[in-house]
Structures are given as C-alpha cells and as structure tokens.
C-alpha cells in the first residue's frame, strides 16, 4: 500500500467514535463497497503497548476500529454522522507476531458476507509485506 491516505490522525474522528487514549487507527487509505485499507503507527505511548510491542488486545482493537472506520466512511461521504456499530463476534483470530514500536500496521478489510443486518468482515494485518494477524469480525450497524 503506497497510495496517499484519504484521512489521517484526528481526521479519523469523522469516522469513528473513539477518542484518545483509545484511538487505534490513525490512517484511512481507501474504501469501496467491499474493501477498505487502514493503518496504525505503533507508538510507545499507546496504552496497549508493553515491552516495546502492541499486545494482542491492541491488535484486535485496531481491527475493530478499522472495521468501524470502514462502516463510517460511506455516511461520511454522504455528509452524515457515523452510525453506531457493535461487534457481534470475533472469530478465526490468528496473531502471528506482535507489531513493534515504530512499525506501521496496514490492515486490509473485506466484506465476506452480509445477512440479517450483520456484516462479516475478514481482516488481514501487515507490517510491510509480512502478514502478522488475521481475523473475522461480525459487525452490526444500527439503522
């Protein structure tokens, strides 16, 4: 992913409800109807960092907030407020290694199913070209 981001830093607040110190996505590259790309610079000040690494809950929270940003992007383009979303389930989560302070996590999201108001999203997290985590999340967006 080398394209210029659409939104960075506090601009992401237009897409997600979280605020410091629990903001776990700082870059929004792109989105279409099925896919989105987000990112996070891992900093030592991050509350989920321990011993120079972003611990597992931080990785999962990053994926969750990436999904929230994905869901919030379309309303944002229409000039609407982001809708409230809930995580229904986290499944098939695999963390190969923890991202280190100074690294940039790039996350690709893809909608793999939708039914009864529930969206199943598959996420893959990279550092450079290395896949460090994958998981699926079920998201419910309030109408």
């Amino acid at each position, binding site marked *: 992913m080398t394209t210029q981001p659409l939104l960075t830093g506090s601009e992401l607040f237009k897409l997600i409800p979280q605020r410091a110190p629990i903001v776990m996505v700082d870059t929004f590259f792109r989105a279409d109807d099925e896919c989105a790309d987000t990112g996070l610079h891992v900093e030592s000040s991050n509350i989920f960092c321990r011993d120079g690494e972003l611990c597992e809950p931080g990785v999962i929270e990053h994926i969750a907030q990436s999904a929230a940003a994905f869901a919030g992007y379309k309303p944002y383009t229409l000039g609407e407020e982001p809708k409230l979303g809930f995580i*229904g*389930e986290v499944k098939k989560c695999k963390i190969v290694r923890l991202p280190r302070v100074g690294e940039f996590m790039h996350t690709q999201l893809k909608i*793999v*199913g*939708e*039914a*009864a*108001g*529930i*969206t*199943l999203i598959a996420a893959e997290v990279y550092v450079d070209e290395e896949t460090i985590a994958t998981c699926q999340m*079920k998201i419910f967006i309030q109408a």
Partner: protein
Amino acid sequence: MEKEALIEKINTVLSEEFEVEVSEMTPEADIKETLQLDSLSLVDMVALIDSEFGVKIKGTELVQVKTFGALYDFVHERM
C-alpha cells in the same frame, strides 16, 4: 457441476462448518432450524456459500432460501 455432485458438496461443507449430520439435510428441511442458525451465524452460511461456490446470497434473496432444496436450486442456477 452436476446437481447431485453440487448437493453433496453443499451438504459436506455445511456439515463440517456447522457440525450437523448430512442425513439431517433433506431438501424440505428448514436450513435455520437444522443448522441451528441465529441472526449472528446466518451470515456464516452466506459467507461459506460465497467462498466455496462463488455465489452471493443477498439479503432480499435470503428470505426465499429457507429450505435446503431451495438452497440447492439457488446455487445451481447461479453457478
């Protein structure tokens, strides 16, 4: 793919994913009841059919796919 082979494959992937005996998947059986799907797990079946057979079931179409027989027909017609 021949319809009989398709039915067998659908039953196999659903059986493995939802841990239900293939013998319970009769054409007239209700999918949600047989696979014990709730509103959260229904999307798993939709994603599985898409990934295994390349067939998307939209929300509006899902109401028509209530039985296994309807599911076999739906997937077969779109492959």
